[in-house]
């Protein structure tokens, strides 16, 4: 794709899909923007009139708002840290030649196929439940009081559940990246006197940077919108302890039936996502090219 004419042809070829994608994006965005300045509450008969920046101000003045922003970022960050670190370690483990490797890999991948509400229910009722949960059985086995996960550590619990769901994705990407590392490079490093840790540090980890970048970018996109797991388990509570921005928008749109406010929240979420994307691309985006 280096000559003038092939470049022009390429542009012409992608133009239609760029156009469709642009419409696809701009129409909902414009409508949300429009509603965010309107008075539009489903429970009142009067649904017209401009309200200026009132909806936005309501969010900014709401005591829950900054907590929700923090929770959203903590959820994204926490899950990213857990999935990347554990994902690399598990990928290193199941890359070793062992008996039943195929089966093992399928087992590791399988949580990814469980739908988010189902996964959350499983965790809530089978693991974290104060009476029937596995964890409480274990703590009782040690003669201790069961931990009230969803009451005392709601955000951590959600982070745990979401990490469990996304770990297979990260592991899978890292595993394929590991398999593309030439064994001669590792052998050369071994001959050069690199200890197993140094081989990881200087050969494997640099080889994985692109995969790690891909995992971080893709997961961030999905994690910013996490909703189902919170809805099924904590409902954003206790209080607002596990309310994230998407959950706050949901409360305005569906519980309070205030479309105008929810739209303003949506626009704030878009801005937040763009800020996150900007810093991500500045921080790690360079690992994607070359």
């Amino acid at each position, binding site marked *: 794709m280096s000559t003038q004419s092939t470049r022009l042809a390429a542009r012409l070829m992608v133009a239609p899909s760029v156009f469709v994608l642009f419409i696809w994006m701009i129409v909902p965005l414009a409508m949300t923007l429009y509603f965010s300045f309107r008075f539009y509450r489903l429970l009142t008969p009067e649904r017209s009139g401009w309200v200026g920046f009132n909806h936005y101000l309501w969010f900014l003045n709401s005591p829950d708002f900054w907590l929700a922003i923090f929770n959203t970022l903590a959820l994204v960050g926490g899950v990213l840290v857990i999935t990347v670190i554990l994902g690399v370690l598990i990928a290193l483990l199941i890359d070793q030649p062992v008996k039943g490797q195929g089966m093992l890999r399928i087992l590791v991948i399988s949580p990814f196929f469980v739908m988010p509400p189902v996964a959350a229910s499983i965790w809530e009722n089978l693991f974290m439940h104060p009476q029937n949960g596995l964890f409480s059985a274990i703590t009782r086995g040690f003669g201790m009081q069961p931990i009230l996960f969803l009451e005392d550590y709601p955000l951590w619990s959600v982070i745990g559940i979401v990490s469990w769901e996304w770990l297979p994705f990260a592991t899978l990407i890292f595993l394929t990246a590991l398999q593309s590392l*030439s064994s*001669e*490079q590792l*052998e*050369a*490093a*071994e*001959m*050069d*006197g*690199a*200890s197993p840790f*140094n081989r990881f540090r*200087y*050969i494997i980890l*640099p*080889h994985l*940077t692109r995969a790690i970048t891909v995992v971080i970018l893709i997961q961030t996109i999905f994690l910013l919108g996490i909703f189902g797991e919170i809805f099924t388990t904590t409902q954003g509570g206790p209080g607002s302890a596990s309310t994230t921005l998407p959950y706050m928008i949901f409360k305005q749109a569906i519980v309070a039936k205030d479309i105008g406010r929810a739209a303003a929240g949506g626009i704030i979420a878009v801005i937040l996502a763009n800020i996150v994307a900007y810093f991500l691309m500045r921080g790690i985006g360079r690992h994607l090219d070359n």
Partner: protein
Amino acid sequence: MGKIQLTQVRKSFGEVDVIPGIDLSIEDGEFVVFVGPSGCGKSTLLRLIAGLEDTTSGTIAIDGKDATTLPPAKRGLAMVFQSYALYPHMSVRKNIAFPLKMAGMSESEQAARVERAAKVLNLTSYLDRRPGQLSGGQRQRVAIGRAIVREPSAFLFDEPLSNLDAALRVGMRQEITELHQSLKTTMIYVTHDQVEAMTMADKIVVLNAGRVEQVGSPLDLYHHPQNLFVAGFIGSPKMNFLAGAEAAKHNAATIGIRPEHLDIGAGGMWQGTVGLTEHLGSDTFLKVTLDSGEVVTVRANGDVALHHGDRVALSPQASKIHRFDASGKALA
């Protein structure tokens, strides 16, 4: 120091005996070449010496000390891989310095050694590039650079030139030979290219199916092959073998005569018809079908005026005939 001694070294992968048992000693400072057909176990043997594979049984001693179970890093050997195995995310400088860094050497000493190696290998202007931005020959040099900075007691090369084009191969061959002459370090070099073997080696080890067929200097192998395999493997074009009546005249099961030891001329004892001719300029290779039905290759002058279908008479130089018994062993 770099004396390497293999005693009854055996290697099997599961059921398959790749190397059924090898005794070999490599003297300090020697340039030893392992040759043999593809799949005969050359790389495996090299990797056993390097410590990248475990021996099934037998011992490997380096400088008189048993190294059979030592990890690769502790053996003091450096290896150059066929695929170069450079670290793609590091600059050439960092690649070459890597073994020094792993050894915990000071930054200034590292820099000095890298500088010296780069000068020897003409890499000075490429030190800040990544391996991906280098040509094949330059990558090869970086791989060699990474090996020499450690000042190992021996170098192991596994077909280092097989990814290079013919002209570059000749150049690198000479560079490696010169490197050996200036460093005087033991080098073990694996190849299946017998020209490389003949031109570079002090000592050639001919391997076949995991067994050592013969060990000797290049000319020794050329003049005195101990068996049919070595006779056929060393020398290009291949030695001609004749069995049956012709061999019986010499009291042997098989006789061998090299293409360059067949003279063309009237009064020759073998009559035949010229088949394929290959004109290389300096030489001409003729395939001659003898009247007895056997095909022999003849190496003649570059300007010999013989063509397909011409009749020729050939006479072997009597002193250059190799005789082999029924089991393939050379007869004195």
